[in-house]
């Protein structure tokens, strides 16, 4: 046994002393935290599985529920807005149009809402064990991505059934759209998760904000319908919403019947800019998170 004792001593002596918790420094702290998260990737994987497994654990239909919700919404919007309000007359393949918008929008909202609640929801762990706390909002993002993949599969199948599958260059919009959604979703999740610890009202505020932004993104109506009503600065304001761009980018991929419909000019460039701004925002959000997390354990 003394050999294991001696090797341990030798190994420890070779290691440098490290400051506990998040590392100091703006840029170096960010890098250190990313490395720390990478070291915890297995845990992240297990946490995502936990979220997914625990959510529908005791229900008979289980996973089907995560599909039934967006499908019901699709049905309601397609009938109420498409048929009763007549939007379907101006928007070809209205069901595909709405479902594409809902799919990408759900990814964003699920990331943000589950992320916001993640720190408070895992308070038992946070008070008792040190982990890089970013894993909790990230696990929210992970499970949202999984649900997104399932819905996406359904969307692709639907486009195949109607005989109008997306092909060729239009797929260029897909990674751009996804990147913008993930980056902005993650940034908001990090920021709001940290703030929510100190101000619990945030999680209710998020519910309201999500509702507002659902209607200021072209999900149930098309850009062609809203653009004529927006003049000058209002149009710029509308397009400053990265999710509005992401929704249109996503429709550009899957809504093949909408090819003749108007889209904002330079959509791909706009998505690129939104992505870069989103990356900076994520960095800032992580820094705020790191600053606030020092007191998580005592505020929860």
């Amino acid at each position, binding site marked *: 046994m003394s050999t294991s*004792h001696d090797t341990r001593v030798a190994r*420890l002596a070779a*290691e440098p002393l490290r*400051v506990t918790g998040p590392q100091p420094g703006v840029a170096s702290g960010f890098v250190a935290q990313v490395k720390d998260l990478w070291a915890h990737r297995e845990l992240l994987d297990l946490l995502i599985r936990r979220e997914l497994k*625990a959510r529908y654990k005791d229900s008979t239909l289980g996973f089907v529920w995560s599909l039934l919700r967006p499908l019901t919404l699709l049905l309601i919007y397609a009938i109420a807005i498409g048929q009763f309000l007549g939007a379907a007359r101006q928007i070809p393949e209205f069901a595909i149009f709405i479902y594409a918008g809902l799919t990408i929008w759900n990814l964003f909202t699920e990331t943000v809402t589950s992320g916001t609640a993640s720190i408070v929801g895992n308070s038992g762990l946070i*008070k008792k*064990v040190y982990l890089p706390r970013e894993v909790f909002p990230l696990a929210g993002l992970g499970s949202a991505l999984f649900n997104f993949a399932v819905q996406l599969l359904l969307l692709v199948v639907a486009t195949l059934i109607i005989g109008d599958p997306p092909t060729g260059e239009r797929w260029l919009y897909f990674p751009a759209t996804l990147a913008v959604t993930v980056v902005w979703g993650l940034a908001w999740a990090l920021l709001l998760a940290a703030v929510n610890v100190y101000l619990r009202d945030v999680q209710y505020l998020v519910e309201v904000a999500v509702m507002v932004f659902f209607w200021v993104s072209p999900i149930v109506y098309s850009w062609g319908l809203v653009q004529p009503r927006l003049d000058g600065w209002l149009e710029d304001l509308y397009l400053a919403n990265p999710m509005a761009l992401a929704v249109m980018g996503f429709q550009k991929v899957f809504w093949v019947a909408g090819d003749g419909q108007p889209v904002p000019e330079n959509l791909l460039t706009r998505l690129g800019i939104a992505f870069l701004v989103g990356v900076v925002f994520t960095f800032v959000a992580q820094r705020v998170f790191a600053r606030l997390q020092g007191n998580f354990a005592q505020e929860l």
Partner: protein
Amino acid sequence: MARSSGPTVVQVEGVSKRFVIRKEKSLKERVVNFGRSQRHKEDFWALRDVDLSIESGTTVGLIGPNGSGKSTLLKTIGGILQPTSGTVRTRGRMAALLELGAGFHPDLTGRENVYLNASILGLSTKQTDRYFDAIVDFSGIEQFIDTQVKFYSSGMYVRLAFAVAVHVDPDVLLVDEVLAVGDEPFQRKCMDRIRSFQHEGRTIVLVTHGLDQVADVCDRAVVLEHGRLVADGTPAEALRVLRSEFDQMRAEDIERDQERRARQEAEAAAGGAVATPAPAEERPKATISAVEVLDGGSPVGVVAPGRPLAVRVTVDATEPLTGDWILGFGFESGSGQGIYGTNSRLLGVPLPTVVGRAAFDFTIPALHLGEGSYTVHGAIAGPTGAEVHRLRDGAQLTVQADSREVGFVRLDVGLVPATA
């Protein structure tokens, strides 16, 4: 146990931790109370300028009264709390056992939770695969491993959590009171595991209220009081400091009690016949002024076993001690563990009324204490058994023998072949 020549694994430098206790949480309350927000805040220093460095391979006990900042210090070392000022630096893999099963999810099965909890404590999935059978075996709940954890009894829950925790391979283990959970076999299992951890050169930092446990397993103890480090040394030294601390707290308690009683009596006297009921505990004012060990009438410090001795306890009564008051004495080991005690009530000896100074002898026909150093205390209690005063470390006594036996008692054992 004391192979403490290793490198520093935990270095705490000038660490302070302030808690701000806010009394409102919602936005409305904050807006409404905006101007007066200072009144709804309270500052509280849980740690004040703590310096501590721990070498690898040592077992350190953090002790102190409730609210002294032990757990806060432990959490700061573990990185769970960030200090307000100062730095904490560590080396090596650290595992914090602040609560067994902190990461268990009620809706997942035992198997899933083992993997999740092991990962939280820092094991990779591959390592968990390797230890999985050992973990389940240790927990002793094989047939329930694929049942959801919410259906477990609390005992099963704790066993599984502990099984995971001890299979993690940390260099530094932080333990907070978890050893107090569970039945006796479980606690013994914990202690065995801690001993083997010590043997493997791991560093253990332990927060506990079990002072005997500290004397038993730790090779160093740190006493905290109101967030400050007041003693740091061998468990025996630290325990002495802490016990005298506790005595002082108790003395203050008694004093407050007596003051209140005096005030009530004065009020009752001023208010005439309307007498307020007396508080439950009646405590006459008296102190133990000296404890001596006498051999043939003269004080001794070193004795041989088997000697007839007397323990003389001197009482100073500022108020008359009447009725069923109690006088007692006892021996403590060098580390402060109580090993013997008796008093006038247990002996069935009624005591006379005492005014002023009086001395009593407890006679010991033959001393059966084993080899070692002991301290002797004397104590007075009121008729209800509530302690009035205790003189700790009243006398020192060293027993010198021929090293034939170890332990606190001397039995004069012989050894002969058994006759069939």
